């Protein structure tokens, strides 16, 4: 089965074979990015709009670069600054966009489900660049590509996701993707930062980090999202670092060749020790950024192909 989606709204709707197809294509785009001529014409003539209702530098830059490398006309719209302050609803925004005839729409929104809602109302392929606490599919895909390239496979691995799971869309998308590809997923964090009944997602949950890290192949750290804290989830940053910050001692419980990942931006000294983050033998954090561009190129290329192969004017 090849990639058949009209939008990329979440990992939840993807079939494992679609994930593999996307990662295979992304591998080719990694080579393109490393060559002298970093350009393809896959999105030639198409318009890509990046609509960010929430601050983002890295993800937006990654999508922008991905679109430009594929030859699309890319436009960035910082939505916090403009219309929502004037009381325009998301549906109004969708109507305005339709009039501009974009082909690819990249959306980040602070509310879970907002990107799904927008996708129902616009006539173009929509990519979810993060919605509330719900999903962040391209992050999970770039993590998967990073793991596959570092470990040589994306199945039967033991992977620990550590930190603020409750507020993390990255964690949700990764739990789903890694589960679909038949890996063992362990979640590590204080109970106040765990979503309710998360054990029913087929994960093992650990409150003790050393126990959770025992013999894992991959350690994924999450950012402690200070801006999401209503206050009172953890006693203090220093206690958090003591119990859940990744340092050499805690990492020694994982397999000797375990890799360390982080979606960025990092809080050094809060969730991760600076030396670990910079250790080129363990940390693949730089690779993750590189894979991000390749995965987003692959996702947009596949969605554009599906769009071309559909009869014009048919909404899916």
């Amino acid at each position, binding site marked *: 089965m090849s990639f058949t989606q009209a939008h990329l709204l979440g990992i*939840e709707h993807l079939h494992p074979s679609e994930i593999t197809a996307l990662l295979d294509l992304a591998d080719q785009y990694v080579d393109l990015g490393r060559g002298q001529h970093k350009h393809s014409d896959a999105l030639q003539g198409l318009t890509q709009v990046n609509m960010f209702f929430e601050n983002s530098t890295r993800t937006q830059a990654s999508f922008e670069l991905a679109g430009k490398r594929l030859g699309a006309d890319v436009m960035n719209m910082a939505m916090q600054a403009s219309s929502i302050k004037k009381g325009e*609803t*998301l*549906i109004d925004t969708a109507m305005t966009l339709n009039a501009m005839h974009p082909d690819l729409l990249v959306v980040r*929104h602070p*509310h*879970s*489900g*907002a990107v*799904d*809602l927008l996708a129902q109302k616009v006539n173009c392929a929509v990519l979810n660049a993060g*919605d*509330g*606490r*719900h*999903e962040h599919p391209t992050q999970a895909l770039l993590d998967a590509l990073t793991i596959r390239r570092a470990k040589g496979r994306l199945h039967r691995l033991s992977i620990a996701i550590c930190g603020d799971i409750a507020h993390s*869309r990255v964690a*949700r998308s990764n739990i789903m993707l890694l589960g679909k590809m038949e890996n063992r997923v362990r979640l590590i964090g204080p109970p106040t930062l765990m*979503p*309710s*009944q*998360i054990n*029913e*997602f087929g994960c093992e949950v650990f409150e003790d980090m050393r126990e959770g890290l025992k013999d894992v192949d991959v350690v994924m750290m999450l950012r402690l999202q200070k801006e999401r804290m209503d206050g009172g989830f953890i006693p203090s940053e220093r206690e958090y670092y003591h119990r859940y910050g990744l340092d050499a001692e805690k990492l020694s419980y994982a397999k000797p060749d375990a890799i360390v990942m982080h979606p960025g931006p990092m809080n050094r000294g809060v969730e991760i020790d600076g030396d670990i983050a910079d250790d080129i033998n363990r940390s693949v954090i730089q690779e993750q950024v590189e894979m991000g561009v390749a995965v987003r190129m692959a996702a947009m290329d596949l969605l554009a192909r599906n769009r071309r192969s559909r009869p014009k004017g048919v909404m899916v």
Partner: protein
Amino acid sequence: MTIRFINARLIDPETGDDTLGELAVSSGVIIANSTQDADNTDNRFRGETSDAETIVDCMGKCLAPGIIDIGVKVCEPGERHKESYRSAGRAAAAGGVTTMVTRPDTSPAIDSPEVLEFARRRANEAAPVNVLVMAALTKGRMGREMTEIGFLQDAGAVAFTDCDHVIRDTKVYSRALTYARSLGALVIAHVQEPILSAGAAVTSGKFASLRGLPGVSPMAERMGLDRDIALVEMTGVRYHVDQITTARALPALERAKANGLDITAGVSIHHLTLNELDVADYRTFFKVKPPLRSEDDRLAVIEALADGTIDLISSMHTPQDEESKRLPFEEAASGAVAMETLLPAAMRLIHNEHMDLPTLWRALSLAPAKRLGLASGRLSVGAPADLVLFDPDAPFIMDRFKLHSKSKNTPFDGARMQGKVISTYVAGQPVFESE
């Protein structure tokens, strides 16, 4: 004029009977019921058919007391574009609701005799069914100062409620309850621990975690109920809780009743027929307050309704316009229109064999009538002739644009349903007849 309903399947919540028979009504009241007074029946039903007599052949369909719906939101004053007394009244008639008991969560709130007077006048002018008006318990439903409970009662308020606002200040609340008790007023409350439930859009659990939506523990309902039960015990007020929707709140309710407190409980039709998974991909028409619960909770609440621990069913009719609903789930308004879907939705409890029709009608008409001290909700001789004739099995696919409500926010749009109202009578007069 006399109307004789013949070949009727009479659903009597008082006796628990479900039998074929005849019913006669005249001057707005039931004057004969063939299943109740066999002696009289001979005279009443075998007499000469006078000119002024109309015969309605029910063809074996169900004839039951009209539904008495406690907690209907009509958006007058303030938001008439969402629902007026006229549109709500027509929706009620079409749904077999013969008495709407309306909520004070309008804007402004119905918290003074003057606003109450306005609402009652509009209701009398425009609504074809009986309308009883509730008033706020505190001014502006702000939870700070009690309203003029005495004046409001004199002006016709049948109960006092701040609707979905929970009074946080227990001192203010206990004084309001004490004062209400001195007047014998009925207080209706919404039970949710207000701080724990702040900001929640769904019930916490696997579904909330999957969708990344802020959830509230179902325990918040029990905490709210526990506090209120203590206050009822302390003040002796007549008390009704609008919606009990979780299994964990039921033992406390049972204990309070066993201890002789004057407490009754309701549940919305949505919590009886839908669960949290129906929200699916962020469908905002399924956003209600309190949020939809787990399937285990739904089944426990149905059982409690069947055994009488929960007394009555409300539609919790809450009109919202498209703009309030076409938003990301967290931002979207809560509530659903429900008067017209109440009867077919409730039929799901019958078709799934959770209870029989007289038991269902105890919750839809008799129990609310008793709680409000009304003579209606019964099929006995002398009771008001507020009746609904319906086909319990007729199948149809719900189309929200066919609703009489001005707002079309029903979660049942496109749903396969069974149960259609054929006609509705208020005080012996037809107020709705299906085409």
